[in-house]
C-alpha cells in the first residue's frame, strides 16, 4: 500500500492524478468565465485527454496487480482509501473510452453557449467525470459515498442547466430525490456490511462474516440503492425525465457511463464485499431485470420525443444487464463457475457496448437538436440529406443497439443467449422451468429494440422533412463529427474483434468468479466453452457479406447498366402527397401501444373532424407512476396533515404536551 507520492508510479496514483487534473480543470473554468473560446477550445479538449488517459490507466490496470493508496483526506479514522483492481480498471476503460468521444463532441457542441453558464457547466461536467472515476477507485464506504453523491449532485446541476423550463426543474428534482434515497439505502448497506466493528474500509468488509439473513439484507438494500441509480423498475421513473432534460453530451454521459457505475457497485458489493451469495438473489435479480428490459423497450417504442425514447431504451439495456447479473449469480451459487464466467463476460461486454452505442446515439440526437432545435420526432424527418455525417454515424449506433450483426450489440446478446442455453446443467429444477421463459423474454426485448431503432432512425433521419425549417438544418461541426466517429468506431471494432475483448475481460472475470472463460476459437472466432457448441466469427461474417455485396454490385453494373431516372414517388393516384402523410412517431408506435396497453395510461386528444387546424396529441404515460408513486405522495401528504394538527397554535395545548410528556416519563421511569 503505497502512499501518495508526487510522481505517480502505479496505476491508481495515475488515476487519482487525473481526477485531480479534472478537478483543477473544473475550477479553472470558473476563472475563465470570461472567454468562451478558451473554455471550448482548451478546457474541454484537455478534459477529453484526461478521459483518454483514464482509459489508458484502466487498460494497464486490467492486467496489473491491484494497487492502492491512502489519501490524507477523509474522516479522522477513515482516510480515503483508493484501490484499483481489474473490476475498477474495466469500468475505467469503459468510462474513459466513452467519455473521450463525448467530451471531444462536447467541445464542439457547447460553442453555441454563452460563456457564463458554460463556465458553470464545465465545472459540473468535470466534477461529474472526477466523481465517477472516484466511485470506481473508492476502497472504503466513506470515499465511495462521497464520490457517489458528488456524481449525483454534479449531474443534477448538469441536468438543470436549462433551469428556466419548469419541466426540467421538476425532472432534476425527481432525479436528485431518488438518487438521494438510493444513497441513504446504500449507507445502510455499508452499515450492515461493516458488521459491528466500526471500520468502513472495504478490506474489513471483505473479511466480515455474515449470517445469511444480514447478507440478504445487505444485498437487498444494495439492489435497491444501486437499482435506483441504474433505473431498475420500479425505481426508474426519474430516468426518462432526467436524461432528456440534460444537454445531449451530458445525457450521453449519464446514460452511457453513470448507469454503469451502479452496475459496478452491484458487482462490487455482491461478489467482492459480501463473502456469501445466495441463489434466490439471482432469481430475484433475473426477474427484475427482465421486467425492466421489457418495460423499458415497450415504453421506448411509444415515445415521440427522441431523447426520451433513448432514455427508455437505456432502461431496457440496464434490464438486460441486471438479468445477466442475476443469471451469473444463479450459476455462481450453483457451482457452475465456467458458466458464471460466461454470463459475467456477457454482462460486462454488454455494459461496454451499451456505453458506446448509447453515447453515440445521444450525441447524434444532440447534433439534430442543434441543427433543428426540435426534439419531438413528429417535426423531424429526412435529415439524412442535410446532415449525412450525423446520419450515417448514428445509423451505426442504431444498428448496434438493435443488436444486429456484425456490430457490437449483437455480440453481447449472443453471449447472453448462449449462457441461457447452458441452463440444463442447473440443479434446481424450478429454474429449468423459468429460464426458457427468461430467454424468450430477452429475445423479445432484442426484437423490440430493433423495432424501436427502425422507428427512431426512420422517423428522424429518413423520409421527408415534416417541418419546413428542417431544410435549413446544418451538418455538425468537425469536433462533433470527430467525437461521433470515435464512438462509432468503438461500436464497429467491439463488434468485429470479440475474441480480443473477451481476452481483456479475463482478469475481471477471474477476479469475481475465480474462473476464466476460455475461448476455443482462433483470434477471429468467438467460441466460448467449445467450438463444437457454438461459434461466431464476425470478421468472416463481415467479409462474406462485403464480398457478396461487392460482387453483386460489380455484376449488376457489368452485365446490365447503371442507368437511373429520377421522378416523384408513386402517389397511388392521389396527387396531394405531403410529408405529413408519413407515419408520425405516435403512428409508428401504435401497434405496440395497442398490444401492451395494459402497462400504460394513455392520454389522447383527437381533433374534431371539422377543425381547420387539426391537432393530434397522444401520450402514453407510465402506469407505475400512478399506481405506485402517486399513492406514496398522497400518504405522505396525509401524514404531514396529521402532524400539522399537533401544531395547534394554542399555547394551552403546547403546555398540555409538555405536561403529558412529563407525567408519562415520570411514570415510565419510576415503574
Amino acid at each position, binding site marked *: 500500500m503505497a502512499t501518495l507520492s508526487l510522481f505517480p508510479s502505479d496505476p491508481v496514483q495515475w488515476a487519482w492524478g487525473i481526477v485531480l487534473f479534472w478537478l483543477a480543470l473544473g475550477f479553472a473554468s470558473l476563472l475563465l468565465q470570461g472567454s468562451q473560446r478558451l473554455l471550448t477550445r482548451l478546457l474541454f479538449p484537455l478534459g477529453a485527454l484526461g478521459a483518454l488517459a483514464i482509459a489508458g490507466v484502466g487498460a494497464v490496470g486490467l492486467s496489473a496487480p491491484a494497487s492502492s493508496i491512502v489519501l490524507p*483526506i477523509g474522516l*479522522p479514522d477513515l482516510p480515503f482509501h483508493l484501490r484499483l483492481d481489474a473490476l475498477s480498471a474495466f469500468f475505467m476503460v469503459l468510462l474513459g473510452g466513452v467519455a473521450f468521444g463525448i467530451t471531444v463532441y462536447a467541445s464542439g457542441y457547447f460553442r453555441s453557449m454563452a460563456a457564463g453558464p458554460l463556465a458553470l457547466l464545465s465545472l459540473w461536467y468535470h466534477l461529474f467525470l472526477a466523481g465517477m472515476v472516484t466511485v470506481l477507485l473508492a476502497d472504503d464506504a466513506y470515499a465511495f459515498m462521497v464520490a457517489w453523491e458528488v456524481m449525483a449532485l454534479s449531474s443534477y446541476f448538469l441536468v438543470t442547466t436549462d433551469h428556466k423550463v419548469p419541466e426540467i426543474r421538476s425532472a432534476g428534482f425527481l432525479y436528485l*430525490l431518488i438518487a438521494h434515497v438510493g444513497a441513504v439505502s446504500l449507507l445502510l448497506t455499508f452499515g450492515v456490511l*461493516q458488521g459491528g466493528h466500526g471500520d468502513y474500509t472495504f478490506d474489513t468488509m471483505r473479511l466480515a462474516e455474515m449470517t445469511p439473513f444480514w447478507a440478504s439484507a445487505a444485498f437487498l438494500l444494495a439492489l435497491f440503492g444501486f437499482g435506483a441509480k441504474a433505473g431498475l423498475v420500479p425505481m426508474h421513473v426519474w430516468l426518462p425525465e432526467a436524461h432528456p432534460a440534460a444537454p445531449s453530451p451530458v445525457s450521453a454521459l449519464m446514460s452511457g457511463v453513470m448507469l454503469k457505475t451502479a452496475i459496478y457497485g452491484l458487482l462490487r458489493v455482491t461478489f467482492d464485499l459480501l463473502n456469501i451469495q445466495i441463489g434466490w438473489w439471482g432469481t430475484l435479480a433475473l426477474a427484475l431485470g427482465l421486467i425492466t428490459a421489457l418495460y423499458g423497450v415497450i415504453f421506448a417504442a411509444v415515445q415521440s420525443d427522441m431523447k426520451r425514447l433513448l432514455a427508455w431504451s437505456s432502461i431496457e439495456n440496464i434490464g438486460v444487464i441486471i438479468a445477466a447479473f442475476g443469471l451469473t449469480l444463479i450459476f455462481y451459487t450453483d457451482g457452475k463457475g465456467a458458466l458464471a464466467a460466461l454470463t459475467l463476460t456477457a454482462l460486462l461486454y454488454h455494459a461496454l457496448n451499451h456505453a458506446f452505442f448509447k453515447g453515440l446515439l445521444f450525441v447524434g440526437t444532440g447534433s439534430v437538436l442543434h441543427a433543428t432545435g426540435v426534439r419531438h420526432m413528429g417535426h423531424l424527418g429526412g435529415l439524412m440529406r442535410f446532415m449525412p455525417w450525423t446520419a450515417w454515424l448514428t445509423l451505426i449506433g442504431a444498428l448496434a443497439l438493435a443488436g444486429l450483426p456484425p456490430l457490437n450489440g449483437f455480440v453481447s446478446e449472443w453471449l447472453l443467449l448462449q449462457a441461457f442455453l447452458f441452463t440444463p446443467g442447473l440443479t434446481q429444477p424450478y429454474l429449468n422451468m423459468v429460464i426458457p421463459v427468461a430467454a424468450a423474454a430477452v429475445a423479445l426485448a432484442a426484437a423490440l429494440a430493433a423495432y424501436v431503432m427502425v422507428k427512431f432512425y426512420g422517423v428522424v433521419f429518413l423520409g421527408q422533412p415534416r417541418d419546413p425549417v428542417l431544410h435549413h438544418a446544418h451538418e455538425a461541426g468537425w469536433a462533433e463529427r470527430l467525437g461521433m466517429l470515435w464512438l462509432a468506431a468503438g461500436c464497429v471494432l467491439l463488434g468485429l474483434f470479440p475474441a480480443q475483448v473477451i481476452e481483456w475481460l479475463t482478469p475481471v472475470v477471474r477476479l469475481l468468479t475465480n474462473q476464466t472463460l476460455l475461448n476455443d476459437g482462433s483470434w477471429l472466432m468467438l467460441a466460448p466453452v467449445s467450438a463444437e457448441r457454438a461459434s461466431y466469427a464476425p470478421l468472416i461474417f463481415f467479409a462474406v457479406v462485403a464480398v457478396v455485396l461487392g460482387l453483386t454490385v460489380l455484376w449488376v453494373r457489368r452485365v446490365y447498366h447503371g442507368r437511373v431516372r429520377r421522378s416523384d414517388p408513386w402517389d397511388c393516384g392521389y396527387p396531394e402527397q405531403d410529408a405529413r402523410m408519413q407515419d408520425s412517431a405516435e403512428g409508428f408506435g401504435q401497434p405496440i401501444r395497442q398490444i401492451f396497453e395494459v402497462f400504460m395510461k394513455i392520454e389522447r386528444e383527437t381533433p374534431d373532424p371539422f377543425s381547420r387546424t387539426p391537432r393530434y396529441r397522444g401520450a402514453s404515460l407510465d402506469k407505475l407512476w400512478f399506481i405506485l408513486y402517486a399513492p406514496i405522495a398522497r400518504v405522505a401528504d396525509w401524514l404531514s396533515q396529521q402532524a400539522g394538527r399537533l401544531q395547534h397554535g394554542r399555547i394551552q395545548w403546547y403546555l398540555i404536551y409538555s405536561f403529558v410528556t*412529563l407525567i408519562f416519563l415520570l411514570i415510565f421511569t419510576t415503574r
Partner: protein
Amino acid sequence: MEIYWLLGIPLTGGTFLALWGCRRHAPEINALFSLATLLAAAFLTNRIIVDGPMMVGNGWFFIDSFNVFLVALTAFVAFTTALFSRPYMRIEAEHGKLNDKRLRLYHSSYQIFIAAMLLALTTNNMGILWVAMEAATLATVLLVSLYRTPASLEAAWKYFILCGVGIALALFGTILLYFAAEKLLGSGGTALLWTHLNGVKAQLEPTVLSLAFVFLLVGYGTKVGLAPLHSWLPDAHAEGPTPVSAVLSGLLLNVALYAVMRSKVLVDGALGNDMAGNLMMGFGLLSVVLAAFLIKRQTDVKRMFAYSSIEHMGLITFAFGMGGAVANFAALLHMTMHSLTKSAIFFAVGHATQKAGTQLMANIRGLIKTNPTIGWGLMLGTVAILGVPPFGVFASEFLIITTAMHEHPWATPFLLLALGVAFASIFGKVQPMVFGETELPKLPYQPALAPVFLHLGLVLMLGLFIPPYLAAWYKQAAHLLGG
C-alpha cells in the same frame, strides 16, 4: 485568565451598547466586541490545546474538550452573525421596521445573550448552568418580539412561557440533583460542581437521579426543541429578525443540548443502565420523524428551516442516545456542522427575504438571476444541510446512520423515511426559489455574504478533512461522554 475575558467582553459590550445606544457605528462596535470575544475564545482554545482540560476560579469554571469547541464555535458564529447583521439590520431600519430604541435593545441584548451562552458553556456549577440558560432565554425573548408585529409578539410569548416552564422543571431537576449530591458532598457550594459530581457519580442515589434526569431532560429538552416539546421553536425562529434566528438555531439549541449531555453523563454513572440513552433516542427519533413531516407543509422559508433545526437536533439527540465512541463523535461533529450550515442558510435566507419583502417561499423566485451569490449560497447551503457530500453534514450522518444500522436496526426505517421526506420537502421548495424565472429587480446593494461562504467553506473542508487536533477534541469529548 482568558475565561474572564471571554465572559467579560460580551458583558461589558452589552452594557456599553445599552448606553451607547444607536449612535453611529453601533453595529460596528457590536461586531468589534464579538471579534474580541472570538479572540478571547481563540486564546482559551489555544490554552486548552496546549495544556489540556483546566479548572479556573477555584472550580467555578471548568473547561474540557467537550465545551471548549462549543465555546469556539459559539464565539465564531456569534462574530460572523454580527458581521451579517450589520448591513441586514440597517436595511431593516431603512425599511422602517425598526427604530433606534429597538436597535439599541437588539445590540445590547445580543451581547448579553452571547455572554449568557458562554457562561452556560464554561460554568462548572449545574445551578449556574441553569441560571445562564434562563438568562439566555430572557435575553432573546425581547429579540424575538423585536418587530412588535402581532405574530412576533405571539411567538415571543409562547417562547417565553413554554421555555420558562420547561426551564423551571429543569430547576426542579437540578434541585433533585443537589438533593442527591449533598449527602455525599455535603451542603454548600461544591455540591453542584459538575466535576465533583462526576467524581462521585457512581454513589449518587439512582432513584433520585432518574427522577432528576426526567426533569432535566424535559426542561432543557424544551429548549433543545425535542418533539413534542418543540412547539415554541418554529414560531420563535421564524418571527424574530434573521440574525436572531441564526444564533437561536445555530447556537442556543447546542447549548441546551450541552446541558442535557452534562446531566446524562452523571445519570449514566449513577444508574449504570442506559435508561437515559433510551429516552434520548426516543425523543430524537420522534423529533426527526415529526419534523420531517411538518417541514413538508411549510410555506414560510424561515419556519421551514426552523423545523429542519428540530430535525437535526433530533438526529444529534438520537446519536447521543445511542452512545458509544463513534455515535458520540458523530453527534459532536453534527452539532458543529449544523450550527455552521444552518446559520449560513439563515444569512442567505435573510437577504433573500429582505429582497423579496416576504418570507413566503411562493413569492421568492429565481434568486440565481437577481443575485447569483445569494442563490448559490442558499442552494449549496440547502444541499449541505440535507446531508449531501462532500459537505460535512454528510460525514456525521454517515457515521450516525451506519452505526444505527448495526446497533439499532429497528430505528433505521424511520431515519430513512424521515430523511427522504425532509429531502423531498426542503429541496422541492428551495429549488424553485433559486432557479427559474423572476421579475424581481436585481439587489440594489451588495449583501454581506462573506459569512455564508466562509461557513460553507468550513463545512466543505470538514467534510473532506478534519484537522487532527479538532478530531482529537471530538474523540476526547466523545470519550468523556461515555464513549
